[in-house]
């Protein structure tokens, strides 16, 4: 934490949040390097979602702040993207229009939008569905569109809040690989929240473990396993067990 300013893409400093008397987050500080993939795990109800909502400025922190490239984060200035836990595609827009939504808000010029949306459509293999509406697709397919919509803006910081909470194991692996592929392809900086330790170890370069409420960072765990990762390898199992022991919510 003593590194010079400007070396990190995102700096989180003394983030604290109270809702009335309820102390949810207590003095959280950490840094994210450009292009890093971070997973945040913690006991259920410890304030993971609040933590993310502070990062996207949906809530204002009681104390502390978030800096991107050394400046206080501002959704109007910086390029933030959020994949919410619940389905969040716009039902009145087609798949393609949903993918364009963020770029249009940011007033990217049309040729650029066309190009980026085309590339994300082919990366996700959505050619057949570009003119479908979200409610015509399966839940997992709709969630992939949301993930595409988040990646397509080429965000400074991409936040994901348990995007695969509702999926079965097989789909989950498939979609996790897809996120890894997008992340590697586009070099985005990702903060991914989950309560599933296996998912965290599978995805992350660095895992932040939160404590119970009021949440603070208990430990940072570096995961330097090669990709693609094997969930059954002894190293993987060892890290997963360690992280699980640190959470102990049962």
């Amino acid at each position, binding site marked *: 934490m003593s590194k010079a300013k400007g070396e990190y893409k995102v700096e989180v400093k003394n983030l604290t949040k109270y809702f009335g008397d309820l102390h949810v987050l207590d003095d959280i500080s950490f840094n994210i390097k450009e292009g890093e993939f971070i997973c945040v795990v913690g006991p259920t109800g410890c304030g993971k979602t609040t933590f993310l909502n502070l990062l*996207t*400025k*949906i809530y204002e922190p009681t104390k502390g702040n978030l800096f991107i490239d050394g400046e206080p984060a501002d*959704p*109007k*200035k*910086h*390029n*933030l*993207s*959020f994949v*919410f836990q*619940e389905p*969040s595609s*716009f*039902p*009145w*827009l*087609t798949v393609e229009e949903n993918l364009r*939504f*963020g770029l249009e*808000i*940011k007033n990217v010029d049309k040729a650029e939008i066309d190009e980026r949306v085309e590339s994300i459509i082919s990366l996700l*293999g959505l050619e057949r569905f570009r003119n*479908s*509406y979200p*409610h*015509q*697709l*399966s839940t*997992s*397919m709709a969630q992939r569109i949301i993930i595409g919509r988040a990646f397509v*803006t080429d965000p400074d910081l991409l936040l994901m809040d348990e995007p695969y909470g509702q999926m079965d194991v097989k789909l989950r692996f*498939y979609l996790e690989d897809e996120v890894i592929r997008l992340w590697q392809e586009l070099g985005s900086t990702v903060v991914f929240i989950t309560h599933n330790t296996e998912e965290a170890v599978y995805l992350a370069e660095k895992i932040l473990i939160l404590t119970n409420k009021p949440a603070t960072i208990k430990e940072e765990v570096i995961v330097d396993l090669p990709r693609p990762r094997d969930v059954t390898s002894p190293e993987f199992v060892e890290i997963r067990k360690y992280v699980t022991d640190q959470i102990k919510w049962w």
Partner: protein
Amino acid sequence: MSVSDPNHLNESEYVESVRRERKRSQYQSAILSVIGILGFLILWQLSLVTGLVNSRFLSSPIEVVSLFITKLTDPRPDGAVIGANIVSSLIVALSGFGLAIVIGIPLGLLMGWYKGIDSFLRPIFEIIRPIPPVSWIPLTIVWVGIGLQAKAMIVFFAAFVPCLINSYTGIRQTREVLINVAKTFGASDFTTFLKVGIPYSMTMTFAGVKVAIGNAWATLVAAEMLAASSGLGYMILMGRQFGRVDLVILGIAVIGLIGTLITIIINAVENKILGWRKL
């Protein structure tokens, strides 16, 4: 990752079978509707032919149709041909209704989205809302006479309330997460209002428009019965005064048919705007 196809049909076969199924059920319901209407007319005619109902109180569908044909060219007894009555009523209904849409919907949307506007206008609206539209009739006669403006104003009061309430409720139900999506992309509050709030509210708004046209039509007749010199409501009133049951029924039937036509038009516009729901 493919669309589910329970019977191992490929995609085009599946789409084709769904389409066929849908067409068949549309065909069936069309036939049933026609049978329903015809059945109703036949029963009506029969009840008179058999003398079940005294023809002084009810005229038969055939009489009504022939009166309609006569009234196309004959202004007696109320003083205007049927076409003129229809046009006169339609102008009143559509100007009041149009005004209600143009004023009520934007106002509802703004009140639903912006807290300040809500607090400012809602109390006034809550006081005006429960006043029956026809109770404005004496006042409007004093203010603007019995011309088009007076009647349009009364129709406006009737249609305005559902337009406003539904767009207001619709936009307030906008899902928080969709608003947050726009906000995290850096959208201003106004952009979020335009791109998320308004589209979200449209389902409710259209339901309100349909209620509004019903109200507008109902109030129109009441207004014309009390203060008018032409129009369908006036024609019905004259029918009563001259003891012409057939004229009254003709007026009622024409009002019903035009109301249906307007609903069909509104549905078509709705399908155009909210088509995504049906696909």
